[in-house]
């Protein structure tokens, strides 16, 4: 017993200090028959604990941040400076009555929040969080991420349809249309990384971004022209996939009240909320893995004295902060603007970026490679913008319905 406890603490120390194969000493103490299950549990439990905790923290920080952007204090009543607000929110959602409309399809209404949260948790299993922290090292890790993530769209439809509410159904239709449209630029922007790295395994993609022995700076993909363009495309598409402002049309509280989770209350609503934020974290984690060097430090000399997973989570915090900032800054887009952006701007640009990545594959990091890929991307960005928004259409705003009055 004592030995088991010691080895368990040793395992946690090995994880914290970035040592390889932390489970090696602990697992032989477990009975032979349970070894596989215990090993899986040891990989799964940290995900189930860390990310919901991060979600709780993010809800408070987001409300504080949005408050600062909008010149108000934000939550400031529970705990020091309002930072325990998430506990109050959690208790409230857990104790509220679970209201199911009489006309609703009870079975699907019950399954929908689970069908959203379970796949989102599964997507975390392929992300490399640290040097030796990959729960599931799949040969086709990226494919797994997108395959599992694709089923969240069905959960949204299920929620909207089962509620038997026209606003819910409208929200679900908007959600599916948006997610299907933005999935294409999302996947195409990640394909450029697969092409250059030559693998779909996420740990191998992280390894491809490690600094060589001679470089000062790491070889993050975002430091290349195609990687930079791909990262921006990925970020915009991920924002739309996560249904976050400025792409929060499926919720659209001023038009369709709350979209597909209008008829959800109590814990089921909390599950939707959790699923949405976890989806955002997973998308950020994938972006970090593919473009921002995964758990690698920006400079080679930093990797020796800061644990790898801290870099991953620092980057995650940075990206989430960017998303909060964007949410507080940009107004919601209109439906036609949303579709135009996806199909007429991001899709062609993602295809051109794929071509640029192919050129980079042959030219390499030479001056010619830099000049040609940068030129190609800048010219196509500029001309696509020109075609979509000709100079004649930019001018004084004309109000068609509101009328010109004093502001």
């Amino acid at each position, binding site marked *: 017993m004592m030995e088991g406890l010691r080895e368990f603490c040793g395992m946690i120390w090995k994880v914290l200090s970035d040592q390889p194969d932390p489970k090696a000493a602990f697992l032989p103490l477990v009975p032979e028959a349970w070894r596989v299950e215990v090993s899986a549990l040891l990989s799964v439990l940290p995900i189930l604990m860390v990310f919901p905790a991060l979600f709780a923290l993010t809800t408070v920080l987001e409300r504080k941040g949005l408050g600062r952007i909008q010149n108000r204090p934000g939550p400031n009543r529970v705990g020091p400076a309002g930072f325990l607000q998430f506990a109050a929110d959690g208790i409230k959602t857990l104790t509220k009555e679970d209201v199911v409309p009489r006309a609703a*399809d009870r079975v*699907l209404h019950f399954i929908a929040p689970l069908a959203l949260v379970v796949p989102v948790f599964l997507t975390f299993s392929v992300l490399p969080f640290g040097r030796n922290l990959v729960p599931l090292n*799949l*040969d*086709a890790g990226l*494919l*797994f991420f*997108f*395959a*599992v993530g*694709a*089923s969240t*769209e*069905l959960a949204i*439809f*299920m929620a909207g*349809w089962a509620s038997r509410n026209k606003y819910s*159904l409208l929200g679900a*239709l908007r959600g*599916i249309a948006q997610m*299907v449209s933005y*999935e294409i630029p999302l996947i195409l922007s990640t394909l450029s990384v697969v092409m250059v790295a030559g693998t*779909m395994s996420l740990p191998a993609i992280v390894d491809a971004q490690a600094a060589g022995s001679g470089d000062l700076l790491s070889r993050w993909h975002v430091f290349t022209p195609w990687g930079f363009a791909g990262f921006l495309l990925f970020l915009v598409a991920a924002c739309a996939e996560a249904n976050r402002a400025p792409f929060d049309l499926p919720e659209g509280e001023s038009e369709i009240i709350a979209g597909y989770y209008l008829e959800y209350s109590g814990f089921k609503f909390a599950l939707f909320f959790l699923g949405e934020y976890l989806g955002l974290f997973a998308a950020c984690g994938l972006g970090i893995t593919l473009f921002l060097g995964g758990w690698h430090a920006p400079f080679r000399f930093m990797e020796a004295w800061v644990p790898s997973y801290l870099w991953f989570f620092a980057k995650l915090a940075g990206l989430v902060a960017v998303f909060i900032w964007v949410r507080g800054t940009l107004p919601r887009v209109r439906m036609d603007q949303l579709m135009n952006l996806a199909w007429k701007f991001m899709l062609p640009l993602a295809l051109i970026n794929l071509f640029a990545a192919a050129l980079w594959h042959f030219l390499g990091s030479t001056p010619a490679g830099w000049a040609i890929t940068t030129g190609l991307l800048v010219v196509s960005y500029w001309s696509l913008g020109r075609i979509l928004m000709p100079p004649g259409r930019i001018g004084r705003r004309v109000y*068609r319905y509101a009328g010109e009055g004093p502001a």
Partner: protein
Amino acid sequence: MSALNLLLGIVVLTGAVAALSLRNLVHCAFASIGAFLGLAGLYLHMGAEFVGLVQILVYVGAVGILFVFAILLTRGGGVEERPLFSTSWLCGVGVAGALALVLLSGLFKGADPSDPAASRPSPTLKQVGQRLMVEDVLALEIMALLLTVASIGAIVIAMPEPSRKEEDPT
């Protein structure tokens, strides 16, 4: 046959039977999606990683969405009162039986799974890609052309007819 195999088989069969026998079209769509998921699980369990993941991505992510979209755009998901058994069942049973014969003959011709000498192929993603993009690239391109033609056709059908001039609302 392991317990997991049996469980997945039950999921697939239950999903398929439910998809045929439920009255609400949206329930049928979700039941068939459940069957697709079970099939993907079977593929993954047998070690066919690529096929299993593509099964989820294509059938659950794309075909499933297409199902529900088609149901919503055509009938509004209403429940239709109609006998479950109809004369077209005979035809369906005939086609299904013929397909089952073909599949079973292939199954019996193949290697015995309990035979340890028959080595299980475990293709890596690289090998699958090599095969698809290099050796069998012609078939892939023909499929791509077919799909492109189909989508262009869909757009042509969906386009408003040029003779009917619609009034510009602006």
